[in-house]
């Protein structure tokens, strides 16, 4: 089983389940709305019936933004709103948070919402893989939640195990390397040393995060395919599988990752072109945002679907070769 075959069939399966994309998008929107409403309310209060409404319709006003931030400075998540999270800033901001663990500084409201969403998606991961592995491969709400419920307990244990590894990376590796960079960078002749070290650290950090993520993806896949009960054992075997097929597992993972980047670039190029000066254009921008989110969800599903194919294909090849031997 080659990575492109795994990807091709993986994409086909994802495309067959469009209802699943939309279901996941709706959940994503609903969870995001929980905090978007208070933010909207804060924005509305701040702009009020001032002429600032006119100005902000046409463009941006730093002084209003500055006053808004100051007025809501004690409200936590509202002050995360900034022009630097617009457009491509969205991606850079979130990717940076993922690499450095900066999201821990976002305050309790965001973290609680994030935890809820992660828990929901632990449930959904069982549903996604269960449906993808079922003979019909067809999304139904009932089937989705049935599979989700079946695997939730096991996937939650995997989440705890992966959480320990991510925790080690965020709470031990990040401070250690930051300290190292500061020490070496502090005695270096130029800021370039610290920046290059930072870059290396970023690359290594992403590599390790992706590796852990991939291993636990395969642990979930093994659990669904083989109905495994011991998550420790499934993780151990997933590690073995990943390292035994390092080129293929990594190749597939990064290839899909590149697809995700392509979608980001397309979004980032188009978004600034929508001026958002009329209600219709604001709606258009919103629709474009949701189209991107759909693509983002599609990428996540493609990860699961293609990795499932790769795993099953390679297992099949292994069995064939073992039988032949």
């Amino acid at each position: 089983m080659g990575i492109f075959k795994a990807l091709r069939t993986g994409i086909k399966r994802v495309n067959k389940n469009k209802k699943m994309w939309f279901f996941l998008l709706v959940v994503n929107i609903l969870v995001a709305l929980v905090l978007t409403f208070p933010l909207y309310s804060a924005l509305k209060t701040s702009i009020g019936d001032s002429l600032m409404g006119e100005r902000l319709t046409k463009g941006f006003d730093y002084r209003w933004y500055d006053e808004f931030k100051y007025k809501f400075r004690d409200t936590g998540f509202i002050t995360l709103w900034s022009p630097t999270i617009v457009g491509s800033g969205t991606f850079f901001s979130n990717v940076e948070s993922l690499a450095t663990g900066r999201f821990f500084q976002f305050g309790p409201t965001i973290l609680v919402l994030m935890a809820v969403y992660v828990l929901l998606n632990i449930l959904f991961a069982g549903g996604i893989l269960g449906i993808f592995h079922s003979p019909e491969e067809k999304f139904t709400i009932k089937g989705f939640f049935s599979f989700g419920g079946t695997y939730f307990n096991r996937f939650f244990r995997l989440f705890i195990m992966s959480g320990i590894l991510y925790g080690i990376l965020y709470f031990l590796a990040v401070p250690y390397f930051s300290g190292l960079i500061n020490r070496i960078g502090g005695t270096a002749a130029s800021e370039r040393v610290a920046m290059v070290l930072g870059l290396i650290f970023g690359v290594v950090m992403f590599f390790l995060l992706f590796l852990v993520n991939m291993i636990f993806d395969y642990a979930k896949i093994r659990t669904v395919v083989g109905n495994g009960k011991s998550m420790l054992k499934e993780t151990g075997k997933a590690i073995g599988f990943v390292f035994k097929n390092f080129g293929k597992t990594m190749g597939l993972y990064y290839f899909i990752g590149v697809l995700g980047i392509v979608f980001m670039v397309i979004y980032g190029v188009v978004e600034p072109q929508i001026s958002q000066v009329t209600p219709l254009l604001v709606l258009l921008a919103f629709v474009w945002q949701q189209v991107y989110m759909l693509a983002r969800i599609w990428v996540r599903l493609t990860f699961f679907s293609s990795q499932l194919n790769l795993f099953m294909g390679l297992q099949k090849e292994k069995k064939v070769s073992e039988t032949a031997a």
Partner: protein
Amino acid sequence: MGRKVIVGFITFLLVSVGAFSCLLAQEPLSKRIANYTMDVRLDPEKKVVSGSEVLTWLNDSEVELSELYFHLYLNAFKNNMTTFIADARRVYPGRIPRLKKEELSYIDVESIKIIGEEGVEPIDITPTIEYVQPDDGNPYDQTVMKVTLPQPLPPQQTIKLDISFTAKLPLGMARTGFRDDYFFVAQWFPKIGVFYEGAWNCHQYHYTSEFFADYGVYDVNLTVPSNFILGATGVCRSKKDNGDGTTIYNHYQEDVHDFTWTASPHYLVYEDTFTHEYLPEVKVILLLQPYHKMFKDRYIEATKHALRYYGEWYGAYPYPQITCVDPAYRSGSGGMEYPTLFTGGAYWLTPIELRSPEGVTIHECGHSWWYGMIGSNEFEDAWMDEGFNSYSDDRVLEKAYGPNYFSRRFLQIFSIVFKRFSYKPTWGSISAYRPYAKLDDMSRLTWEFMDGTSYHINSYSKGAITMWTLENYLGPELSAKVFKTYFQRWKFRHPRPQDFIDVVEEVTGQDMSWFFDQIVFGSNELDYAIERISSSPVAKRQGYFDEEGERAFITGEEEGEKEEKEEVIYESHVIVRRQGEVVFPVEVLVTFENGEQEKKVWDGEYRWVRYTFNKPTRLQSAEVDPDHKIFLDINYTNNSKTMNPRKLPAYKWAFRWMFWLQHFLETFTFFS
């Protein structure tokens, strides 16, 4: 014979005129009170500068003086009990400077002698040295030294002192020191205080203060290793290889109040020339760190912008040369001004839209005017330098580079510029000022601000927006005249706040004390708002009315019939409110639905004012300070109200934020 005489006479005349014009050209720009001739040597291994200075000092006062005061700034980093370090602990509790033995500094005055006439033995006054602490009485602080003269120095008499000293430099700290083989040598020699307003003004070195000194002539011989590249105040007049691995440089500058130098084997040296239609030519020298080669043109261009605009607006840069130093990484010497030399600061991978090094270059070069040529007392009136300069550099930045943009450096490496979101350079000052508006008066001894941030914001940010508000209040032409007059009148002197106020009042012909009393010598907030607007058809008469001796009951419908034929008159009310304590005259622009506008001027004194309009059109909006002249107004959003508020922006920004949150949540499904 006759022809020879005529030719000789003409030649004599021409030579005389030439010599006279030379004399005129050489007329001192300043009073030259403190003049230094120095001969010093850098020992790069020991991080020590040692040598001697001959100080020729004029008692420009009207009293006899029997004591002289000197700054010994390097003693600020001698131990953890100095006033500087104690201040640091107090104002920035989280930022205590390092205190390792090899990183500390001190300055020892080995001898101090009065040089008399030729042949007369110098009088050694070293035993009279005494450390004094005029600001806080801290016995551990040795940043001010006093010596007693054997005989009082009469007014307008000059004294000549020969001072031997050794200065151990700190590891780059508070603008001075070394880092490996990079040396930035500032505040490094025994420097006489200023005697003015009938007393010695020689403050201890504080964490939140800069400097104050008299003008004079500096003639300095600097001996450094031959492989070092040297930059210093003034012009290099000679360079001689000593044959022992060292080279002696002579730097000379008239009419400056400090002397600073830097030496490093790594500098890349670039030279350029600033030329202008009517301003004098200036040689621009850039000493650049090799790893910042890509910033060469940006540094030079920014320096030229500063020379141009400050020159055009206030007055010409009078020195032949200016040196811009790109400081070594983490040397603690970046972003600082000295006469004819300043330090910038650059960071790899910084796009030009981030205005770095442009911003710092223009700011520090601009100090040549508000610190270099206007000798403000930075211990006592910091805003008169930093505030004026921040205002001026904002103006240059805007003229030369346009608006600022939102930006963010991701992973501390890559900067992303958000070009859709621009703002005036000075808006950043307002942002900083708002939370501190009521904390301290702007005019205050620098070490008496509540904390370091308050010092910084009151001196820089509030200083800048005060000047912007003044400019907008006076109008561009009058304001330009004020600043130019002030600069021309007070250059190479030591003005006080009142001197600036006097110039403003003289040029404008107005009593401006209300402005300065509230803004400079006060700490109240300025905030005007539109409290309420309303507009409705004029009420119809209803009830009993006595008309022509008879009482009639009017239902209102009778007038309604009339109205159908006549146009409807709307009664509109606008209430403008003063929410802050600062009283400031404001303009109020009222706009009606038919496009008609009315501008009212309110003295802003009482807590509120109501404007009533009866017009055949509905009120649309009202705005106080519609041209946004009052930069000191801490709330700009409440300056207006409209009858037709727009909801679109709240949706627009909420959707944008929602997308970020959606993506954020989706990114972190990574963990599920």
